[in-house]
């Protein structure tokens, strides 16, 4: 099956921390590890500048003047932006960590941090982002292909996925066995499925049925 990632850009590490020195130092560290980094002094500044199509992860300070890290997480969630978030904090605050994890944070690390730890966590987050973007891209592709099916082909596809035989399908739809065969072949071709199992996987992944 030929799946392509929609976005081939290099992922960026976005740093949101109101402490200038921390932002600067983290940026330098991440860049020294060969990753592009961009710093924002507030949650609002990040929201204004961020394009959700850009791959990457978010290093987010929990406590900031104005909009807090948790507030930003909430805002992103409402906007359906799924960028992985690594929370950074000076306090091992249990209540905040619980809220952050519930909100879908990838990670939670305490200042000051060891460079290997933070770079590993960033790498993990970026992998997760890539994976999730890939998954979303694949689903988008399946949905786009599904859009191209005729109503009859969609009916046939649903029945095929429901493990009906061609004979049963012909009987249900009141069409000839040969016609079912032709529809089925076109569904497999248009959807780019190699096998029945592949088609079923696609349907489940994209929640078509």
């Amino acid at each position, binding site marked *: 099956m030929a799946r392509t990632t929609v976005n081939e850009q290099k992922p960026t590490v976005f740093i949101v921390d109101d402490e200038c*020195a921390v932002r600067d*130092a983290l940026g330098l*560290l991440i860049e020294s590890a060969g990753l592009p980094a961009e710093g924002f002094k507030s949650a609002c500044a990040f929201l204004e500048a961020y394009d959700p199509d850009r791959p990457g992860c978010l290093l987010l300070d929990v406590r900031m003047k104005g909009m807090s890290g948790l507030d930003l997480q909430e805002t992103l969630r409402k906007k359906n932006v799924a960028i992985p978030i690594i929370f950074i904090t000076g306090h091992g605050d249990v209540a905040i960590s619980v809220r952050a994890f519930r909100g879908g944070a990838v990670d939670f690390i305490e200042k000051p941090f060891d460079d290997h730890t933070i770079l590993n966590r960033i790498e993990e987050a970026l992998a997760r982002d890539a994976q999730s973007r890939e998954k979303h891209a694949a689903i988008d592709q399946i949905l786009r292909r599904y859009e191209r099916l005729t109503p009859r082909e969609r009916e046939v596809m649903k029945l095929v996925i429901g493990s009906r035989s061609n004979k049963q399908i012909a009987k249900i739809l009141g069409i000839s066995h040969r016609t079912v065969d032709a529809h089925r072949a076109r569904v497999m071709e248009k959807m780019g499925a190699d096998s029945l199992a592949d088609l079923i996987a696609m349907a489940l992944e994209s929640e078509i049925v």
Partner: protein
Amino acid sequence: MTQDKSKPTQPEDLLRHAEALLRQSPTDLARLSVEDVQSLIDELRADRLKLEQRIEAQADELSSTNRKLNEAIDQIHRVKQALSIREKKLDAIVDSAVDGIITIDENGQINTFNAASEKIFGYSEEEMLGRNVSLLMPPPHRDRHNGCINRYLKTGKSTIIGVGREVEGRRKDGSVVPLQLSVTEFTIGRDRCFAGIVRDLTEQKRNEREKRARLDELSHVSRLCLVGEMASGLAHELNQPLTAIASYLQACQRLIDAGSLEKLKPALNSAERQALLAGEIIRRMRAFVSKRRTTMAPTNINALIQEAVGLCEANCRQNSVRLELKLAEPLPDVCVDSVQIEQVLLNLIRNSIEAMAEMPTDANRRLLIETGSCEGSRVQIQVTLKDSGPGLAGDQIDHIFKPFHTTKPKGMGMGLSISRSIIETHNGRLWVDPDAPDGAAFHFTLPIADGSDNGE
């Protein structure tokens, strides 16, 4: 007879007339008529009567004078007695007075030295009568005293007459005793004299010192508590530069490994700056909690506010409180113990932060610190802290400055009480504005430091 025509009227004249008659010759006498003799006898009789009357009148007058004299003598006796009672009373008062009473003449010689003075200075009255009063003063003042009297006698200008003030006295054993001295002037005849009333302030000074020491102790404990309460904020405050330093240095190692040395220097510079910043936070905190003696020094209140704000910035951030400063520049210095005034500021700032922490997250949390000078009996600096919190209910205002009054589960309730004691020992005032439109407004004043305060 010629004498008949000029009849003597005075008894002496009459007598002389009668004698003259008797010295006449018997012939002449015989020539006198019975009427003449009778008339003479009558006259003599009348004169005698007059004389008797005069004697009587004189006797009356004499006895009246005598009575008056006796009365006067009685009066003098009574006055003398009264005077002696009065003198005894005065002596008793002077001697039993708690305060030392010393009188001197215009040469500074002592005329009176009461029992209390004996007790204060350790000299006996006999030792001191006639001695110069400068003996009771420690060296720097001793030599100047006669000059002072002379100057006063010449110019009428005095630094002490009519105004009591604190001075130092010297005891017989040479030790120095703090005294409250007031001097009055009086004249006896043409002599000008001075009376000094001295009170021993040793006890009072000791009480003040003890009170001060207790406040020092209490404020130190309270500072420790305050820093304890602020610990998480301070830890956060320290963590920031440490995080930055760690990250800069980790980046530096990678830069060295990658050979990109041109980026190394700025990164190291940044790390250094952060290390110094962390050191500054620790210095500030240590200065704040250190156990130390009160030291009053001219201080700029604005700088003190900046220092206090530096200690609680993290707490403000944690609680999303926006801190605004409206500091009047330039302001005259105040003479204060900077750590204690900083403690007052921190107490008030924390108080506001805590009051606002309970507000909904989207509420406007603002703390404004304002300085300015205000004119009163003398120029003072006024500091105002105004927050946008829920404010104080009318009945709370009466209690907040009492010790152990607290509305917080964690607080000791000493912050405001100690703050007020601190401000009052600095001769200032700390109060809360009962009519603040929204939120709470605390004010305190401090007198400005001026040269005249240090003068003798």
